[in-house]
């Protein structure tokens, strides 16, 4: 059973100076006293960056940050917070809005206990259509702070220091992107929020905008100030009408309250945001295609350089970040880059939101610190595989990502580890696959998607993915050869390196990674004409079982005359004539047809 509580104690030099080592001992003692040792985990962390308030301790769930206490206060905190589930307010650092959240999500500790919510901090907590709710939880305070006593350079330095990387897929350091755009001289610059979330099965951005649209607005205004831009654009899928409505409402409310428009909060800074709708093209998530789409063109990516930071929308320097990245900005400003960078792994800081779906008990949106393992997400948060089925694979990164097998379950979530394992972080889709799914078919599904979404501009993606798909279809129909697997790899590797944009460059990933991690399944399809998951229709064998009453429904329905038998006697399917259409299976009212 996973630990229900987690105590994270700052182990920085200044906290050690304030007797944090002794405090640990005291906590352990106290836990023992209440027989809580196996219900509460204790972690030590690097400096949490609140040295003036040391010693500092976070108790999760709840993110209650305790500071400026002594060993003597430990029993009270343990008894109140953990036993009585009532945090000791007087030690809680700052007017911490995170505190509020503790009780809010408490009823749901299995799901939320391992999570850490930064980007989604307000999602499911506030009324997204009421700016007062957002403001009451320190909303727009980060913006106010920036406008009060930070220079643009200082804002950028803070974002750089936080180690935040783009949450849209590639993981480019956000601060550097800001810096590059800031240093371009131009009469006009643009800030864009990329909300063209198109991965099948991913809905992080939609939830974030629907649940907390103001944080996006706030993040964008801060960026506008930092890079010297006065125009922002939210490019969002038209398929998300509610999200569109809420972001529009948030923009209007923010304008009314003086967080947008002229002379924001009396600072003299001006910034406007408009909303542009996508129209059903996955490739528009690619930044150059997105900008062309805003300009009123077909969303066909163009070669880079020039990069958007130099020549982007309407030829002006442009800063593009995705929804989740924007949602992190206000928190970094409010709680500090040091705190943010204390979370996560060496190269990937903060948290990441995943849309957990597929064959897992608790499907949903989860936000976890970088460095959490796949196993923790799938089993601790997701509750494992339903129906006692066997875990087979986890697909991360959507159609651009890869499928990882069981041996990778202890991979820590960060950009580099996932890439090393053969997948990507991507925008955060996470699909759990169990033994009932065929990996060749899964690869086919993703490739069908990218093939359908290819813009058609460059040859490798337009023509190459089509050929790969044809080969996969051949394999799933039992017509594949050993050479086909080699061809998939040859094409896949070429398409990865030769395509114009990220869509093409990553389109072969699901295929290549399944060949790498599940080659045996491919070979079974090719050599033994067998699909172990029983998914590939053409490889199925239909048989009549003893349940057959001889109603002849299947015989009449069979388009290939493969069924024989006299009335009221058990029928028989001629495997050689059977075209595996499955009609007999569908028409049988007695469940007498078995496919295997």
């Amino acid at each position, binding site marked *: 059973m996973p630990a229900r509580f987690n105590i994270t104690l700052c182990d920085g030099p200044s906290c050690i100076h304030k007797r944090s080592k002794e405090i640990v001992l005291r906590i352990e003692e106290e836990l023992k006293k209440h027989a809580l040792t196996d219900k509460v985990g204790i972690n030590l962390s690097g400096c949490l960056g609140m040295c003036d308030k040391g010693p500092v301790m976070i108790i999760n769930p709840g993110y209650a940050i305790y500071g400026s206490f002594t060993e003597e206060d430990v029993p009270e905190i343990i008894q109140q917070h953990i036993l009585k589930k009532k945090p000791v307010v007087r030690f809680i650092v700052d007017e911490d809005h995170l505190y509020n959240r503790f009780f809010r999500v408490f009823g749901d500790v299995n799901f939320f206990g391992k999570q850490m919510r930064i980007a989604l901090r307000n999602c499911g907590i506030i009324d997204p259509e009421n700016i007062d709710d957002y403001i*009451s939880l320190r909303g727009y305070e980060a913006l106010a702070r920036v406008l009060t006593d930070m220079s643009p350079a200082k804002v950028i330095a803070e974002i750089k220091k936080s180690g935040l990387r783009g949450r849209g897929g590639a993981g480019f350091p956000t601060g550097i992107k800001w810096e590059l755009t800031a240093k371009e001289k131009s009469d006009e610059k643009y800030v864009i929020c990329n909300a063209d979330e198109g991965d099948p099965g991913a809905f992080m951005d939609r939830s974030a905008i629907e649940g907390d649209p103001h944080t996006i607005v706030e993040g964008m205004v801060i960026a506008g100030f930092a890079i010297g831009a006065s125009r922002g654009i939210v490019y969002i899928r038209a398929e998300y009408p509610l*999200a569109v409505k809420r972001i529009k409402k948030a923009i209007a409310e923010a304008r009314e309250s003086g967080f947008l428009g002229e002379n924001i*909060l009396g600072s003299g800074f001006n910034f406007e945001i408009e909303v542009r709708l996508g129209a059903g093209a996955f490739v528009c998530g690619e930044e150059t295609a997105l900008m062309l789409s805003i300009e009123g063109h077909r969303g066909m990516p163009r070669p880079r350089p020039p990069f958007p930071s130099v020549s982007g929308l309407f030829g002006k320097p442009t800063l593009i970040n995705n929804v989740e990245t924007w949602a992190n900005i206000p928190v970094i400003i409010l709680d500090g880059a040091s705190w943010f960078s204390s979370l996560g792994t060496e190269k990937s800081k903060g948290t990441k939101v995943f849309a957990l779906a597929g064959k897992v008990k608790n499907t949903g949106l989860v936000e976890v610190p970088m460095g959490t393992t796949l196993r923790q997400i799938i089993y601790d948060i997701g509750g494992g595989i339903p129906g006692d089925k066997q875990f087979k694979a986890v697909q991360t990164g959507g159609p651009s990502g890869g499928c990882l097998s069981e041996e990778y379950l202890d991979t820590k979530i960060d950009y580099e580890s996932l890439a090393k394992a053969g997948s990507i972080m991507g925008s955060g889709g996470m699909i759990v696959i169990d033994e009932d799914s065929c990996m060749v078919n899964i690869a086919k599904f993703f490739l069908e998607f990218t093939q359908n979404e290819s813009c058609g501009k460059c040859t490798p993606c337009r023509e190459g993915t089509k050929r790969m798909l044809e080969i996969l279809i051949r394999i799933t129909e039992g017509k594949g050869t050993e050479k086909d697997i080699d061809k998939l790899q040859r094409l896949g590797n070429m398409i990865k390196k030769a395509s114009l944009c990220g869509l093409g460059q990553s389109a072969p990933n699901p295929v290549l990674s399944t060949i790498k991690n599940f080659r045996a399944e491919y070979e079974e399809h090719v050599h033994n004409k067998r699909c172990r998951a029983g998914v590939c229709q053409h490889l199925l064998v239909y048989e009549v079982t003893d349940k057959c009453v001889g109603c002849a429904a299947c015989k009449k329905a069979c388009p290939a005359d493969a069924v024989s038998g006299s009335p009221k006697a058990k029928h028989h399917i001629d495997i050689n004539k059977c075209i595996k259409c499955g009609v007999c299976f569908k028409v049988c009212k007695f469940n007498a047809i078995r496919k295997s």
Partner: protein
Amino acid sequence: MSTPLEIIRKKRAEAINRIISKGYLSSKRVYVGMATCEIAAGSIEVMEVFQEAIRSGLSDVYLSQKGCAGRCNLEPTVEVVEEGKIPLKYGLVTKEKAKAIIERHLKKGEVIKEWLIK
């Protein structure tokens, strides 16, 4: 001249006052999930049940919508917060369940344990 920080503090105080004036300090607060996913699962009907109840006299309850907290498979969700108590979240709420929550939990204070998200 106030600094932006001073302005925002003032705005926050105003915002909190507005929220309170809408009945935030009622003894029970009810939050209905109203994101696309929740709506797809039927949360609009659920919301209507609560709204109707308030219209027909249910008092001392603060009703609000909220975004998606991420529990896809248990939607629609309804959260009941009672001052000083642990918040409770109901999952897979239907119109009928919503009526029961009003009758039993909101009016009589009886927690319907079997519908809670554990």
